């Protein structure tokens, strides 16, 4: 389980996270929603150890990763898979090499095993035959799927998704969401996703948390969030202008 307690972070006097508390259940898909620029990605970067908080704790199975560095932090990160907003594929490598990279460098598997796993991972995301293409040669949706394949190929326990559908058309948004849901059913990883895809995200989430002004102001199953009488949540999921201010 991931437990976040009293997380605070400011950048140059601008408080982005103001005592954020959250519990992420093991094996569930937890989605953090909130307006653009509201600190969702900053929060996710704390979880994966790319940003250190000013205060607060991030407990992963009881270990405070906010206090870790070097090898102990890397040991925790080996349990992670991360899908970045832009995919973050290595543009000097082909799609196949991108997916193979963590297997070769992280797990140091033999070449035959790597080939087998890469083929399987790309097959799972419906991308057979793109192994030799470079990221610049495939579409945005395909790049996202390659990024998902790369994040999942090492069979991580916890997968973080940073707005995995940003910039995609509505059909592709649903395709990627269904893909994540299918992969989750198969592998049962713990997923933490930040997104502002309303209402599509309610289809796949087990738990939805609303981030507003640096805190989680509401959290619950999708149905409960959709029926919430919290003014901020209602305004946000209905897309009313006040919520964006």
């Amino acid at each position, binding site marked *: 389980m991931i437990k976040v307690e009293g997380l605070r972070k400011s950048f140059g006097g601008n408080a982005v996270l103001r005592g954020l508390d959250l519990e992420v259940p093991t094996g569930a898909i937890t989605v953090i929603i909130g307006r653009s620029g509201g600190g969702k990605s900053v929060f996710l970067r704390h979880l994966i150890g790319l940003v250190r908080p000013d205060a607060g704790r991030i407990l992963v199975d009881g270990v405070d990763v906010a206090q870790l560095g070097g090898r102990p932090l890397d040991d925790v990160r080996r349990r992670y898979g*991360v899908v970045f907003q832009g995919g973050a594929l290595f543009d000097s490598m082909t799609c196949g090499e991108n997916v193979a990279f*963590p297997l070769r460098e992280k797990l140091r598997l033999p070449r035959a095993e790597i080939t087998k796993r890469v083929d399987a991972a790309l097959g799972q995301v419906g991308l057979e035959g793109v192994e030799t293409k470079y990221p610049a040669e495939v579409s945005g949706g395909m790049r996202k799927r390659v990024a998902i394949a790369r994040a999942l190929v090492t069979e991580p326990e916890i997968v973080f998704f940073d707005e995995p559908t940003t910039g995609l058309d509505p059909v592709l948004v649903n395709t990627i969401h269904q893909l994540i849901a299918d992969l989750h059913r198969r592998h049962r990883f713990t997923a933490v996703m930040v997104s502002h895809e309303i209402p599509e995200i309610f289809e796949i989430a087990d738990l939805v948390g609303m981030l507003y002004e640096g805190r989680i102001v509401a959290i619950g199953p999708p149905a409960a969030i959709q029926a919430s009488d919290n003014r901020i949540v209602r305004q946000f999921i209905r897309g009313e202008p006040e919520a964006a201010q």
Partner: protein
Amino acid sequence: MTGSSAAALLRPFDLLGGWAIWLVASLGRFGSFLVEALVAMVSPPFKFGAFVDRINFIGFRSLLIILLTGAFTGMVLGLQIFLTLSRFGSEAFLGPAVALSIIRELGPVLAALMVTGRAGSALTAEIGIMRITEQIDALTVMALSPMRYLVAPSIFAGILTFPLMTSIFDVIGIFGGYLVGVELLGLSPGTYFGEMQSFVDIGDVLLGFWKSISFGIIVTWVCTYKGFHVGHGAEGVARATTQAVVMSSVLILVWDYFLGTVLP
């Protein structure tokens, strides 16, 4: 004295203190970046593929520009030094004058400046783009050290290729001086090379060698650091690339003067 006027009086000291803290912190980051890269360079696992790629990127692909600048530098030196020496009737010293100028100063400095312009700027831009597109973050969250994959191979390649580039520059430059002095202006080949053997010793070659190694470290260190700490977007990459080239070039000239005064 009121509180506000005291604050106004102290304001310059406040600014100076803030600037001093910023400077010390920046130098600390800059220094620890190199230490971290050197540790990654000498500790396993070694990334031989990345080393070879960087040697190709920094060294082999700079060969043409090194050949061109080396040849024309030697030719210009040959012409100008010949014309100067001929005023004193000392044309016989053209060979050592060209060789010493190139081996001790111009070879290491110009080769380093050329490689900075061609490969250093590209290095900063490449790493900068990896930073803003989260590729470096992707490496980090895979528990793989970006220092080991991106920085250490570049610095190692700098240490290896700069002396090689400099020695190629030296040979071509001396040959350029020969072309002008001997083939064009009529000095005898024996005089050109004979006097060179008398005046140029191993100390001169070693000075150029140590300079080129230190320039290799400076250029790759500055350029990778600037790429790593790039600002936002395309503008940030452009600014970092410019800063890397300017800073590398200035440091090359400053360090050249310093080494010239402390080494024999």
